[in-house]
């Protein structure tokens, strides 16, 4: 029988205080007087009253909490109660710990029908209507993963909240179905590929039928699924997207024709997973225009191959593009792995669960690097729409630009273009996933809060520091945010007498799944992220990570099993689940035979195809030699990790899956991995041209600088740096917040081996706004920025590698693909020019939201083409790392690099446009990178850092020189006197000088004693001393003609810098 155990704080409850503040901020400031919280554990078991009492004592903190068993713990006074719990099947970490605790307490196993579930009741006092409370509930709970119950005070008195057991019940018979693809026409093939395998008929009444016919009048595929049989109406319900187009479906049809049979559902689903854009990266692999080897081989891997050849015996790459992470040399004993992933689509639906799964998921790319590496550093990057209320939401390029021009055609256009409608690029305040306007998308603030929280939980719980990151804001991220998560890892070069970066499953090895169990979560994740998001997006695409289950697994693998040599290969279960991990590893030996009924399930009844492709988290697949199995199994048991043999690797050239003693999948390895036909890509490219904005030059730029610092793209995100543990593992050298002013730096330094002098530098570069003008220069600037940021803290170009993460949009359109091609070409040009190889990369090609505005008008919101470049480098001596803050009065301030009139798509133009016409300006003079000049500057700076002449260094990034100088000044809480007369470059006016985003520049301060030495090292480069650090905090900039153009002080600057997100 199910009973509720309710727990509540005795006195002050800080969580309730925070909850109250949050709810009040939703517009209920005057209406909510009090908030109280009660935690609920619903225990569904055969335990008797005295046993439940013991369970309650185990759960409660006797010092701070009260509890009641089987009766409500009611606050004295309240008006409404809202209870939020998880939906059936959603990972409930606390409940799992509770179950484990109960079993340990009574030294017994709960039977599969018993269970524990958690929920929380929020009691509200105040003058609230039912609809107020519903709105509040909508903010407390995410209906994608949670259930909500609301009771008024009077209702509650009748017996408290209800006892609810969210147990998963599956009615289906767990078996494999045959899918007819041999005897169907092309439109059915298309339907199967796009909407999925037919599952069952849903009966409709005549009105529903007619409504749907009208709705689908322009959608031949959906229309074809509406049927009339014997005066009854039906709609075919399908299992969700396979993301296989007609070319692929035909190829599959041909294969099975040859086999003389139809495929089973699991075969079709398995091929769909393996061939998905998410797994095969077909857009980067397929021939494109004149490049037959495709973008990846020609330009990304091509760059790395060229650089490695040139470096010869100085090549520091060890494992590139072939494993779960890229690998470089750290020292004689260790390698460093690095990987950056995105988790965009799930984060739009369930930001919290989506981002936990992202960060915990990328950690498995460390565990799956070589024979298993230990994660020592996280990084993050978030692209959101501005979360602050009442922001302008009209896109400039739509209203003001010539509609024939490219910006008007492809940015945020109304989708599909409505006749007679102004093509104004309006992103509505509120929009919906579905035509019926029932599935409202989350607000930018909800997405931002949830995503930040999720990485907090996932990163902190895993005991991995998360120092490095950024936020970038553009309203085009309102439909789909971009959530970048990365992990750096450490692995000894040799483990159990083997090179640790190599692995090979052997015929005869057991296929072992270790870690979590399999449930319905994450079914169709891989094919889902290969499609644009619309109302068909499966809700089960969202999984919630369980960092502790993974931590137990990770520790057992990388701290013990690896170095005992207990397995021959390992990979993670991410996209596509077992179907991808087992098939991938089977390539290493030539085949596999899986017994699917041996896979441990979260709940009974899961169908075989779901078991095979489920993306349930925290699982690794390993190949364990038979003679090592007992030792491996025993170790995992002692570490509380479930490990199960689910089959055997072999060299049969077949991937065979058995279920209930029947073969349900039998596909040639060759077809599965290499059967997909190439689909040559043709691209187009139209250069963008914008009006040149005419900006009046202000004599006093003080306010401009203050406004600039408070813009979301520039402002302090200290609240993130402080809630992400950046010191665990003890390796922190250059922290995310630097100097007395606690200013966010743009690179961090971490020691992965604490008793070594060496350290790892990591940084990022991202400039999506430049894509509005030219994606080639966008990519060039991203690379230059990542490198420059790394050099600013002490990295050296000779030991610096890059990672690329493309987040594109509408990648089925020739124009978007043309933009992609240009960006990728820039990657080759600039990586080779700097000699910084790409070691790992990932792409996410359909970051488009398709939905409806409040009036039911279809809209499409596409993210700007976005490339994140991350750098990873090794510095020889951590004690030489440099922070950004000015150190002492009278230190000399230098600018390195040239400042030109490069303000196209800059933050300054955006700001001026918003000031002058309510919409950002774009302009045309996008910053261009001169790698030859910059290379020399960066190498000279590295030498100066190595000789310890540099007291502070700050790379000039978005916002330009004034922002960089302000950060140096704010960091040290020391003022500056700056003179722009000698500033190198061709900048034509003062505001351009201070806000230009010319690349290749850094601001450094040095001890005046080193003036001569420093200038000697810099000789031959464009550089100039432009001022001195003051003893007080006054920040004064003189223009090119000597006049004061900025006069403020470090404290005021800090104030502007930190106000924007102070309530976050």
């Amino acid at each position: 029988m199910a009973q509720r155990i309710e727990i509540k704080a005795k006195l002050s409850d800080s969580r309730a205080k925070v909850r109250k503040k949050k709810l009040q901020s939703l517009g209920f400031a005057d209406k909510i007087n009090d908030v109280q919280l009660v935690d609920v554990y619903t225990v569904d078991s055969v335990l008797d009253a005295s046993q439940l009492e013991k369970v309650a004592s185990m759960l409660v903190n006797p010092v701070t909490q009260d509890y009641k068993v089987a009766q409500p713990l009611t606050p004295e006074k309240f008006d409404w109660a809202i209870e939020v719990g998880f939906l059936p099947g959603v990972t409930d970490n606390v409940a799992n710990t509770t179950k484990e605790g109960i079993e340990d307490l009574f030294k017994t196993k709960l039977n599969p029908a018993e269970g524990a579930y958690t929920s929380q009741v929020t009691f509200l006092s105040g003058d609230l209507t039912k609809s107020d409370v519903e709105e509040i509930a909508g903010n407390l709970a995410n209906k994608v993963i949670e259930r909500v119950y609301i009771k008024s005070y009077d209702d509650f008195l009748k017996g408290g909240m209800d006892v609810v057991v969210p147990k998963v019940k599956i009615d289906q018979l767990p078996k494999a179905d045959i899918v007819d693809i041999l005897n169907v026409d092309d439109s059915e093939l298309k339907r199967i590929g796009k909407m999925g395998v037919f599952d069952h008929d849903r009966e409709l009444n005549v009105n529903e039928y007619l409504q749907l016919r009208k709705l689908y009048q322009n959608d031949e595929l959906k229309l074809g699924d509406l049927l009339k049989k014997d005066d009854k109406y039906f709609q075919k319900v399908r299992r969700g997207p396979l993301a296989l187009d007609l070319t692929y479906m035909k190829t599959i049809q041909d294969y099975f024709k040859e086999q003389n049979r139809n495929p089973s559902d699991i075969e079709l689903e398995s091929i769909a997973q393996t061939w998905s854009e998410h797994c095969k990266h077909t857009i980067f692999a397929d021939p494109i225009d004149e490049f037959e080897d495709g973008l990846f081989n020609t330009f990304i891997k091509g760059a790395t191959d060229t650089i490695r050849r040139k470096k010869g015996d100085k090549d520091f790459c060890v494992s590139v593009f072939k494993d779960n992470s890229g690998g470089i040399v750290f020292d004689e004993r260790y390698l460093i792995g690095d990987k950056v992933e995105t988790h965009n689509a799930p984060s739009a639906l369930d930001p919290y669960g989506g981002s936990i799964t992202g960060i915990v998921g990328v950690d498995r790319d460390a565990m799956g690097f070589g024979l298993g590496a230990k994660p020592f550093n996280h990084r993050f990057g978030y692209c959101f729409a501005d979360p602050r209320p009442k922001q302008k939401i009209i896109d400039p390029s739509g209203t003001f630009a010539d509609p024939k021009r490219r910006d008007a055609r492809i940015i945020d256009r109304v989708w599909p273009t409505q006749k007679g409608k102004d093509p104004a690029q309006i992103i509505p305040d509120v929009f919906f996933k579905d035509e019926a306007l029932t599935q409202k998308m989350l607000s930018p603030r909800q997405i931002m809060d949830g995503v930040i929280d999720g990485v907090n939980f996932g990163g902190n719980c895993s005991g991995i520091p998360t120092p490095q990151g950024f936020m970038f804001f553009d309203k085009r991220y309102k439909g789909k945010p971009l959530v970048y998560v990365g992990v750096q890892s450490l692995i000894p070069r040799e483990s159990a007498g083997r090179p640790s970066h190599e692995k090979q499953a052997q015929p005869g090895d057991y296929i072992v799944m270790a870690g979590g169990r399999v449930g319905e979560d994450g079914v169709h994740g891989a094919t889902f992220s290969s499609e644009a998001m619309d109302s068909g997006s499966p809700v089960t695409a969202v999984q919630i990570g369980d960092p502790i289950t993974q931590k137990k697994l990770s520790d057992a693998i990388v701290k013990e099993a690896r170095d005992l040599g207990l397995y021959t290969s390992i990979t993670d279960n991410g996209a596509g689940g077992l179907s991808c991990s087992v098939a991938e590893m089977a390539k290493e030996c030539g085949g596999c035979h899986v017994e699917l009924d041996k896979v441990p399930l979260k709940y009974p009844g899961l169908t075989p195809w779901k078991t095979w492709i489920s993306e349930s988290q925290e699982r690794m697949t390993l190949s364990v030699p038979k003679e090592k199995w007992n030792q491996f199994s025993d170790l995992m048991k002692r570490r509380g990790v479930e490990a199960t043999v689910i089959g055997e690797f072999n060299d049969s050239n077949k991937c065979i899956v058995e279920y209930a003693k029947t073969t349900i999948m039998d596909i040639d390895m060759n077809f599965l991995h290499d059967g997909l036909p190439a689909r040559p890509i043709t691209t187009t490219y139209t250069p963008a041209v914008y009006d040149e904005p005419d900006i009046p030059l202000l004599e006093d730029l003080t306010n401009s600088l203050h406004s600039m610092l408070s813009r979301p793209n520039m402002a302090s995100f200290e609240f993130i740096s402080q809630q992400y543990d950046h010191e665990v593992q003890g390796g922190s050298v250059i922290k995310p917040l630097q100097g007395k002013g606690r200013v966010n730096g743009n690179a961090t330094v971490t020691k992965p081996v604490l008793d070594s002098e060496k350290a790892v530098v990591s940084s990022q570069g991202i400039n999506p706004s430049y894509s509005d003008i030219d994606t080639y220069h966008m990519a060039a600037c991203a690379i230059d920025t990542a490198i420059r940021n790394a050099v600013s803290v002490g990295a050296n170009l000779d030991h610096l590698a890059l990672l690329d993460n493309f987040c594109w949009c509408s990648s089925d359109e020739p124009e978007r693909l043309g933009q992609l091609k240009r960006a990728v070409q820039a990657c080759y040009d600039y990586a080779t020019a700097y000699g910084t190889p790409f070691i790992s990369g990932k792409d996410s090609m359909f970051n488009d939201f398709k939905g409806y505005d409040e009036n039911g008008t279809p809209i499409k919101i596409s993210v700007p083409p976005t490339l994140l470049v991350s750098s990873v480098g090794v510095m020889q001596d951590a004690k030489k790392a440099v922070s950004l803050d000015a150190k002492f009065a009278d230190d000399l301030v230098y600018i390195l690099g040239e400042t030109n009139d490069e303000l196209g798509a800059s933050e300054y133009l955006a700001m001026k446009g918003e000031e002058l016409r309510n919409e950002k300006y774009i302009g045309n003079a996008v910053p261009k990178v001169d790698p030859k000049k910059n290379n020399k500057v960066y190498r000279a700076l590295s030498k100066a850092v190595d000789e310890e002449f540099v007291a502070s260094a700050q790379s000039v990034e978005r916002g330009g020189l004034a922002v960089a100088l302000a950060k140096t000044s704010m960091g040290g809480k020391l003022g500056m006197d700056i003179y722009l007369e000698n500033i190198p470059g061709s900048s034509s006016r003062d505001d351009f000088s201070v806000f230009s985003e010319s690349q290749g520049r850094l601001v450094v301060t040095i001890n005046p004693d080193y003036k001569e030495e420093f200038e000697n090292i810099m000789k031959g480069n464009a550089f100039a001393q432009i001022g001195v650090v003051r003893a007080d905090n006054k920040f004064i900039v003189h223009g090119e003609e000597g006049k004061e153009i900025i006069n403020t002080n470090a404290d005021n600057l800090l104030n502007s810098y930190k106000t924007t997100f102070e309530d976050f």
Partner: protein
Amino acid sequence: MAKPSFLIPTGFGTNCDDETELALKNSGINAKKGHINDIIEGYINLNDFQGLFFPGGFSYGDDTGSGNALANKIRNNYWDELLKFVEADKLVMGVCNGFQVMVNLGLLKGVSGKLGEQQVALDFNDPVEDNPNARYFDRWVDLKFYNNSPWTKGIDVTQFPIAHGEGKFFANAKVLQEIEDNNLVGARYVEGVICKDQNLQADPNGSLNNIACITNPTGRLIGLMPHPERALWFTQLPNWTLLKEEYKRKGEPVPKYGPGKKIFDNAREYFE
């Protein structure tokens, strides 16, 4: 004298074990990490050790309250052995989550009542000026120690980092009075160089009486929220780049270690 041996229990989400092990070894202690299950099942014998160090981390993900689930696990399976150990002439320290475990086990408490009875709590952080939403909070703090434990001998005012979401020290008035009257407060959050330089408040979490650390009456058992193992090296300090410039300009050598090392040196010296 032979090196003392210390055991660091690990597993179920502890995560400061490696740096803790290094910090102990660096001060000349034989440090060994041992999985809780291996300790419970007898693969590792507690009697082989002079010290026990509960490391920081997220045992059981803080589910059901930080430190609670791991404390239950120990209480259910290893209580008698642990009790014997803490009553002998041994040293025991818990840092952050380790402190939370010790508090939940009733090893650190007031003076009345019996060992094992939980009397104090490390509750959810309170909203404070520097952390208005009471989240997990990573920063450096200034600490005043009271020289009432062998672990903290000779430490007065110093700086360590904290990183926690549940660190608010709480006890009822009677227990709190006992703790104060019997000089069991090991350290408090105070205003010092970190607060002054970085413009931060002394109190990071709303702890009663600003308590950051308590000991048992002998001082051999101690728990603290701040992390000495993250203040072991000079380059871990938040302001080391500034200090380095200062030392260089004065012509003084740049130190290798940070203030946390003293804690581990003290542990070794106790057994000399």
